[in-house]
């Protein structure tokens, strides 16, 4: 067993699960979406990105690209949410909906990532 591979898979799957946990619930209801869960989703996604860096294979490049997409979506969501709470002072229904939909987009990217990871694992010769 390779410890590096364990951490690699761990963070990729964790990024997806946290993202999913934040995403479920009514799209415009702030009570259904925990900011701490969002924070962890973003942090884990960033770590997953760094772990994917440096693999020059084709699959590695696609994995990195999906991670970058997820990061971009989550950072965009964080900026919108932070702007709404700090600058305008209220989280409207529309703002919450955009934050959650952006997180939903990030989740799709994370799903792709996990699918690729599984595909690669299945291809491995024993």
């Amino acid at each position, binding site marked *: 067993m390779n410890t590096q591979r364990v951490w690699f898979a761990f963070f990729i799957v964790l990024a997806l699960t946290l993202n999913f946990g934040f995403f479920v619930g009514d799209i415009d209801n702030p009570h259904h979406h925990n*900011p*701490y869960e969002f*924070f*962890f989703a973003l*942090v884990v996604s*960033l*770590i997953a990105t*760094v*772990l994917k*860096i*440096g693999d*020059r294979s084709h699959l590695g490049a696609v994995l990195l690209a999906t991670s970058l997409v997820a990061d971009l979506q989550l950072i965009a969501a*964080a900026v919108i949410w*932070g702007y709404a*709470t*700090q600058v305008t002072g209220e989280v409207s229904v529309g703002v919450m909906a955009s934050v959650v939909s952006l997180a939903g987009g990030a989740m799709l990217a994370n799903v792709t990532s996990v699918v690729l990871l599984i595909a690669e694992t299945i291809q491995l010769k024993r």
Partner: protein
Amino acid sequence: MWLLLLELRTPLITLVVTYSISVLGLVLIPGVTPDGLVYHLSFLDAFYLVSYTATTIGFGEIPHPFTPSQKLWMLFVMYSTVIAWLYSIGSVLAVLSDPAFRRLRSYQRSVSRIHGIKYPYWIVCGFGGAGSQLIRFLDQSGIRCVMIDSDVTRADAARLSDLSYELDILVGDVAEPQTLVDAGVQRALCRGVLALTDQDQVNLTVATNTRILAPRVPVYARSATDANTRNLRSFDTEVVIDPFRVAARSVTQLIRKPNAFALYHELVDPDLNQIDVVDIPTSGHWIICATGRIAETMVEAFVREQIPFCLVSSTAPESESDWFWVQGVGTEAQTLREARIHEAVGIVAGTNDDGDNLSILLTAQSENPKLVTVARRNKPTSEPVFGQGHFNFVLREGRIIAQEMYARITTPLLHQFLGQLEIMPEALVDGIIKKLHVRLGAERPELAHFDLTLDSDEAPGVLPFLHTAMAPKLGDLLVDPGLDHLSMPLICLLLIRLNGDLVPFPGDGLQLEEGDRLLLWGAMGAHHRLHFLVRREDLFETVLAARRQTTA
């Protein structure tokens, strides 16, 4: 770039983890406003705080002064994030300044630059004496090179060489096929590979690699042994230059055909712009001070040309023969006297040591001041002493190779002419040099050679008259297009017809034909006027008319 990111994995993850823990702690720990209300920092505030703490900017406690528990957490934040930040920045700088990383970067930059070259170029393997000289020679003819050398200090020297373009340098093992590929051997613009390292085995590897990687690219190789030369020729290496054989041939040419020797060197060496014929007495013997391969090739050449000689060598010659041999180095007057120095006409100091060679020549000159001196220079760094030593001829290995290759690369006409020159009688060459001197008059300008093809591209002004009654002759070209129509300080060394017929030293009365290729030689700068004349139809007509009038 990927390498950089790979190296930075751990610092980046450390940074992300410490930041996130710090931010989370700040958000979770409750603060108290001056009014006594309990509040929590928002993620934005927390991230802002951690960011300015980590980068040691330190804006202070915002939005309200901290409670003791917040201060306690801030202590942890300060030490952990600042250390993590410095650690990542330090890693980035360490990777960027790592010599291996920088070498790799500069190699990759060179490769991408070479693959972007839009001019034809030659690949020079090895920046030794021959390589540096040849790159300079070729630059004077406007030919670009790409250089490969495994030695960093030589590559630095190459970077400092004063050329009209920026030389692309690849620091890598020449014998590796990948290095050749990186140097662009497979590109259509690559005109040839010049294997000039001082190791036969490396040159051989370069030649074989090129043969397989790019079969259409010609290889010019240096070879220091006959076995290696045969090996290189066995797979059709285009040009193999053996510096020892060329040196021996040069010395015998100097003795037997001083005029051809002078003409040859003026033509093949762009640094030599004068023709100086050394006056060599025809009777008397020569003294050769040399050992090893240079001695073998010299003896062979002297025997072939039937020049009497005496070999001064520290080791006995392998084959028993009828020529005279003296044991010694030649640095002592006694040894030279044994070799009958007072009756000799010349001496060749050809040992492997520059100090010995100088010592031999100085001793010899004091014994017999009338001697013709030939010195062999081994190290390029000894050039100042050899250059100022007033020797009749200095054999420089690097220069010999550079000259030979230069003659083959710049213009194929020159090489064909040099082949003719070797079999030409000495009296004819003497006549040609005298003829040029007559045309030059009292002036001694710098000399140069160039070629001209009579086609619509290069000589549109001449073509219309070729099939008319005017019938332009070679002499009509060599006319100053100025008012007086004086003859130009130029002579034609070789004319090649379209069908391949060679006419060495053509006379002025030779009829010109379309497609003729001419090798012309004379005062530097005269070719501008000639090119002007052959491009202008009206001008050439005037010249023709004027000349027909005077002859009629």
